């Protein structure tokens, strides 16, 4: 059996696809373990879904092919929360509020605030606490 891996996806659902039970089929037909971070998929509106999928390389590939049969866009960076480097003043007020250390100060000499999108679980806390509106959500 080949090794399992985890990918983070952000799916964009146009209005016409918002009623598709895509996650159900990813689990049932493609053997993927799904971990949803954040979702906003409302009937008759556009929607977004940020999730982790875990499975073999083949299962992930077939899951992706399945998703692509709909008019759903897959963003493979899977990042729904962005930090605008230009707006950030690197004050660090966000750092203690970030539960996973996605926002952190690694170099104590420069005290630059680094953002690691892969560690972000999209709790949106940084958006609430940033005084300079440097963090933003895709939805």
């Amino acid at each position, binding site marked *: 059996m080949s090794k399992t891996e985890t990918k983070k996806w952000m799916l964009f659902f146009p209005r016409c696809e918002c009623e598709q039970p895509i996650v159900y089929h990813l689990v049932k037909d493609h053997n993927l373990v799904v971990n949803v971070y954040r979702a906003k998929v409302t009937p008759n509106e556009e929607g977004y879904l940020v999730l982790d999928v875990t499975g073999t390389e083949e299962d992930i590939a077939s899951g992706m092919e399945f998703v692509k049969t709909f008019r759903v866009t897959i963003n493979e960076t899977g990042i729904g929360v962005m930090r605008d480097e230009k707006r950030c003043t690197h*004050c660090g007020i966000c750092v203690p509020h970030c539960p996973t250390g996605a926002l952190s100060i690694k170099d104590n000499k420069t005290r630059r605030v680094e953002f690691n999108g892969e560690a972000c679980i999209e709790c949106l806390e940084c958006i609430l606490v940033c005084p300079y509106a440097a963090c933003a959500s895709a939805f």
Partner: protein
Amino acid sequence: MKTYEQINDRIESGKAVVLTADEIMDYVDRQGIEKAAEEVDVVTTATFGPMCSSGCFLNFGHSKPKIRISEAWIEDVLVYSGIAAVDVYLGATQLRHNDPANMDYPGEFRYGGGHVMEDLVAGKTLQLFALSYGTDDYPLREIRTYFTIDDLNQAIMVNPRNCYQNYNVAINDSDTTIYTYMGCLEPNRRNASYCSAGQLSPLLNDPFYETIGIGSRVWLAGAGGHVYAEGTQHTGDCDRTSDGVPRESAGTLALTGDMKQMRPDFVRGVSLRGYGVSLGLGVGIPIPILNQDVLRRTCVRDRDIFAPVVDYSHDYPEKTGRTICHVSYVQLRRGEIEVEGKKVVVGSISSYFKALEIAHLLADEIRRGDFCLSKPFAYLPRNRASRPLVVRNSSHE
């Protein structure tokens, strides 16, 4: 011993030796204080953080026909117009008209005076709406127009209080989240926040106000500015360490500078959830190394600086005067402090990263001969305490 004139001569000839306040300590350790005091001309200090007591005077020039503005808004933010016809003062903490403030608690405060100042410096087009009662010489009663900073005759930043010498570390002793100008504080001391550039901060490098005084030239968001007065609530008479470093907020500066010369990266609107709006401002101040004592004081390190930990759920609002404990800036920079045996994560609302950038920008300007120093013509008071507001029940009490 060096004089201001000698230092300025060296700056103008491009020979000045300039170090930042975070480089000087190691330099002095290597060279010795005597040699370093001879060699080094200037140490640059800096800070970047929210500075609520900031604002600017704007002059629009006269319309045809003329108006004597009695009420005015820029981008729906109220400006003070109780001065001459087309002069206004825009304050950093003014909310936008119709902002729900904390009616929907905690309010978001997305835009206000500080943001207008940011947009102005960034060269954006802004809307002016002004009213008047009309006079014989100023007949126009209403005006709506669009302008940029280039259209203004003057845009002069005039800040009654900037650059607090030191500051509180805010913590929350209650069992509910509170929203303060120090950010969001979670219940039961789950986090804390501080606001100072510590060893890089201007007045911590000149604790007795020996070189930074009224008339001192400063780098104000990229423009040449100066100290025009002691800052409001300046309290030279404060709790100090044996080296003279204040253990509480202490001294402040009133600063002014030409906004037309400022850089937008250092004039930033601030939105503090549940609290309001403010202005994030960058300030750099050069310290002339006149003698060994001045140099020694610029060698202050984070480990020598202590800030009081204060509860913002009860003690601060009720003005009880209680300080829980003091912590050093080494602990604060580590991101974790110890408060009565409990470890508390801590964040900064002041940007050391930007302060460092400013200290280097200013050092480069001085090395290039583009920024000279000026000797203060009056000193900041060293022995004055701060007064509370006494609430009296009648005018004869």
